[in-house]
């Protein structure tokens, strides 16, 4: 696959986890193939939605791209650099361009650091600016995400889930990245707060030209955020294409089954959707 200017090109990405057994000496007897040959591209400013159920490998894919997990195989080309073989120092530099927003607002912020220090940390780690510069930027970032900058001396536990997600987003923006991996960023939030955060993410994308890899299990959420969609199942991409296309004209049975399974807020459609689900039951056989 040629990287013709795409910001991120993932080719045949693999992440296998060894299953070890043995008494004194452990031997690898098998592998859990969390990600098993995944390929896609993301262009500048674009959002690719990565959707799948639990165990599909979508979060693992995100971590592998950011090299938080070392891929077992395949290639990750980001801004022209092959991340799987880059030196540690070069990788550290490149990290400024790719960041992540996590799912759990409670474990993604260090409870012993103030809000200000949390958002400042990326700049501190890379030695950017003087302390005053950083303080000013922290305030700017918090304002941008709709969080009151007067609260920089407070601790995360004093804030709600949605507020904490905003802090996490401000932190992700601190180094001006080009790509942000959003790993289920709203799954832990109430519907009304979800809407706030999703709107925020959209606004930021528009204002800052960010590209997103939007990982989620909620098909409706992904629909509203993505230009293109990839559907994952058991470590592989089952279907990939423009969001409109995949949602209105799905090709694969698994995709159709997934779409039929989503409960829609319309009681009248229920019977028809249940029929559709029964028809596609084979594609999502519930395993043990």
């Amino acid at each position, binding site marked *: 696959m040629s990287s013709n200017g795409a910001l991120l090109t993932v080719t045949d990405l693999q992440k296998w986890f060894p299953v070890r057994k043995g008494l004194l000496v452990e031997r690898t007897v098998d592998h859990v193939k969390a990600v098993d040959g995944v390929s896609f591209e993301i262009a500048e400013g674009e959002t690719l939605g990565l959707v799948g159920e639990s165990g599909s490998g979508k979060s693992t894919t995100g971590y592998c791209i950011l090299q938080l997990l070392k891929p077992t195989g395949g290639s990750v080309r980001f801004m022209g650099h092959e991340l799987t073989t880059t030196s540690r120092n070069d990788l550290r530099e490149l990290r400024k361009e790719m960041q992540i927003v996590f799912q759990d607002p409670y474990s993604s912020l260090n409870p012993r650091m103030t809000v200000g220090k949390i958002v400042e940390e990326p700049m501190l780690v890379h030695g950017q600016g003087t302390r005053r510069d950083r303080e000013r930027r922290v305030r700017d970032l918090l304002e941008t995400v709709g969080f009151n900058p007067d609260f920089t001396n407070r601790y995360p536990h004093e804030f709600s889930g949605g507020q904490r997600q905003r802090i996490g987003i401000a932190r992700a923006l601190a180094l001006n990245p080009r790509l942000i991996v959003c790993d289920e960023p709203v799954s832990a939030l*109430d519907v009304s707060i979800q*809407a*706030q955060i999703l709107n925020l993410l959209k606004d930021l994308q528009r204002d800052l030209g960010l590209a997103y890899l939007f990982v989620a299990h909620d098909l409706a959420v992904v629909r509203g955020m*993505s230009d293109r969609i990839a559907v994952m199942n058991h470590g592989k991409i089952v279907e990939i294409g423009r969001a409109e296309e995949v949602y209105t004209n799905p090709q694969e049975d698994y995709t159709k089954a997934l779409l039929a*399974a989503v*409960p829609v*807020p319309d009681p009248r459609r229920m019977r028809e959707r249940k029929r559709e*689900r029964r028809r596609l039951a084979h594609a999502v056989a*519930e395993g043990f």
Partner: protein
Amino acid sequence: MPLLEVENLKTYFKSRRGDVRAVDGVTFAVERGLTLGIVGESGCGKSVTALSVMGLLTPNARIVDGAIRFDGRDLTRLSERELEDVRGRQIAMIFQDPMTSLNPTLTIGTQLTETMKRHLDMSTDAARKRAIELLEEVHIPNARQRLDDYPHRYSGGMRQRVMIAIALSCNPKLLIADEPTTALDVTVQAGILDLLEELREQHEMSMIIITHDMGVVAEAADDIAVMYAGQIVEQATAEDLFDRPEHPYTEALLGALPQLEGENVREGRLTAIRGRPPDLVDLPDACRFAPRCPYANPNDACARHNPELREIRPAHLVRSAHPASERAGALAGADA
């Protein structure tokens, strides 16, 4: 007579700052053979309502007022012993997290038969036979072999099915499902909802399904009550609620839902509800949704008094001074 009648239920929690009014005057009824959906965001009091009905409140919570009439008997007047007979036998409950609802050190079979032996006075053999039947009813393959498995050998969806089997084991008249599908994948969720529907018909049970997911409640419920800050703010049949929502909160909630279908979803924005639910210790006398309501006005009556739940159409109740059909611009014409 409805199977369950809850009247002006008030459940408060003790806290250092005062009473947390988790459920503050909730009234609803569940008819025989029908499903009531209670929907709301976290903290609205929906789970506490269910726990109050079941008598499963923690020691720092107490029912301060109200009546819970099940089949004519007021459950709030029963002793713990009498309540234990009702609980599990006539009213059963399933919970959100199948991973922690089952005891990991007991086999599935033991957990199934335990309930039956307690309530139905069955012998172990008879209970085991019935347990296998139940597992088959909830579509667990190879039920006979799997009876002696431990929970860790079951997936999340399968465990939830076991929970349902346990709940059904004593043929309850009412099943309360508290966020039964929240922890499950969407395809598994669909399967569980289908199963609940099927079982409800077969056993002629009534059901209360509690969830934050408007889609789930649209699918599973006949009647829906929307809760906010410890009170019911709107109540109607499922179809009427989604066709013509009245309360600004319901409207906002529906507007905040990401849509699976529809056009221009990518470019559009969701209707966000600004602010946050009120502090349940320090509630004002005003309408509880007022600070977040796009129609509220400091000069309105709702800024001083909490509106009553009133019938705006047959079988459609709303607690608001600004329901949709009464807003300026509502078309003239008969409300059917």
